[in-house]
């Protein structure tokens, strides 16, 4: 089947986020246009998500020429802009937090950039209070763009920060306000290859064990980082080792497929987070076979970006191949679920 033109099944559609190709991009092996062309050549669309502050020089300023060229590229390659990821840089001045007014002013040009480039949805972040997004609703309405913070590990749909947004959304009552689930908070464990890599990096075993213990605790990432720091304090650990290990608290957390039903009507976009595959081609620590049917049956019709984050620790792996495997897995699961041929 031609992946770039055919949806996974009736239901949601597939796509890629350029975040999957972080290493290829960071190592300067691709320019912006080459990278998009390669995504299309490998048939990893049709949805294309980008992180503004990663892919676009000068973001959030986007020139008319750049926006026009981007739209031409999408048309030329048969891709569809799915989501623009923006940032809530509340602590851009170290030691202080932006006011709500400042945060509104910081987000507005990022929303304008999404509109200019033709993105129908925006991923925002919980770092900004929901009041900021509510104040930007008229701008979002002007452009008809949906927005939602990413429900990312270690949050889940009923975590206190998410509940605060759900309550504010209930009052605002706009179809443009939603959420972006990230499947990293449906992990059963950390990938074995991830843990093996920590050992290969020669991080001290006692620190690794302490970090894994803290990872299991049902608390948010900030708490886990502090708790880990507290537990390693007597060990006089190298701060660079502590930072390297603390990454695990933000990338994956335990959760179930069913928990997404609570917010399913408000899902505007999905991050299909993945790291590695087992011998059968299943994601090694995230149970897609239980998750994807929940979204299919829940009536989600937007895009799931394949979001490979194994680039954090894997080297010599072709990110495009990883995304292709992820999309093949998604197609198999949906085909099995719906009784259609993959």
């Amino acid at each position, binding site marked *: 089947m031609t992946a770039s033109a055919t949806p996974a099944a009736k239901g949601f559609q597939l796509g890629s986020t350029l*975040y999957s190709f*972080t*290493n290829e*991009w*960071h*190592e*300067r092996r691709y320019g912006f246009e080459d990278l998009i062309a390669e995504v299309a050549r490998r048939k990893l669309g049709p949805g294309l998500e980008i*992180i503004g*502050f*990663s892919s676009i*020089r*000068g*973001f959030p300023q986007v020139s008319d020429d750049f926006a026009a060229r981007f739209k031409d590229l999408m048309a030329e390659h048969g891709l569809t802009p799915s989501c623009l990821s923006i*940032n*809530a*840089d*509340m*602590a*851009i*001045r*170290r030691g202080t*937090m932006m006011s709500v007014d400042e945060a509104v002013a910081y987000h507005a040009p990022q929303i304008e950039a999404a509109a200019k480039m033709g993105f129908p949805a925006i991923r925002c*972040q919980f*770092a900004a209070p929901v009041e900021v997004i509510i104040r930007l609703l008229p701008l979002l309405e002007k452009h008809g763009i949906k927005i939602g913070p990413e429900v990312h590990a270690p949050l889940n749909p009923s975590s206190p920060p998410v509940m605060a947004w759900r309550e504010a959304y209930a009052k605002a009552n706009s179809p443009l306000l939603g959420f972006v689930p990230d499947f990293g908070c449906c992990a059963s464990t950390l990938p074995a290859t991830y843990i093996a890599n920590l050992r290969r*990096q*020669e991080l001290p075993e006692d620190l690794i064990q302490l970090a894994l213990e803290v990872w299991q605790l049902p608390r948010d990432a*900030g708490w886990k*980082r502090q708790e880990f720091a507290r537990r390693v304090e007597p060990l006089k650990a190298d*701060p*660079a*080792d*502590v*930072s*390297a290990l603390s*990454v695990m608290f*933000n990338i994956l957390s335990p959760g179930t497929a069913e928990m997404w039903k609570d917010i399913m009507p408000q899902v505007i976009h999905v991050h299909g987070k993945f790291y590695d595959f087992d011998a059968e081609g299943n994601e090694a620590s995230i149970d897609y076979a239980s998750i994807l049917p929940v979204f299919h049956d829940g009536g989600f019709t937007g895009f799931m970006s394949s979001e490979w984050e194994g*680039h*954090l*620790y894997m*080297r010599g792996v072709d990110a495009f191949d990883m995304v292709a495997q992820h999309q093949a897995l998604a197609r198999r699961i949906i085909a099995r679920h719906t009784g259609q041929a993959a």
Partner: protein
Amino acid sequence: MARFFKNAFSDYLITPEDSRVTPQGLVLDLRLPWYRSLPLSVVMPTELVVDGQPLSLAGATVEYEGRHFTLAELPEQVSTFWFIQDSVLLHVPTPQPLAAGPHHVLLTLNLYPPYIPMLTHVTRGDAALQAA
């Protein structure tokens, strides 16, 4: 000897082929150890060790897009974004020229990702450089 790679997004923090030793000091070509561009306000070199001895960063400057910033000026640079595919140059004066031959440099860099308030991400990288 510190482990080379603590930099999650590139196998370099210091790019050896683009770094150099000059009569005035070191010019280190740094790659951003993060996945998105960050304002220079949240970037801070904190420690440099040359051949096992600490080298003061007191007179150091960061050069980006042709502008030089002292380290004290960095926290104010909230609208200068270090683009992910660019290097910055860290200029560090040495009290006297480094002797001809190989030198080992080890840099610690702190990042304060602005959308993750309270997080200090400490990263470190090293490189072998040749002084003429």
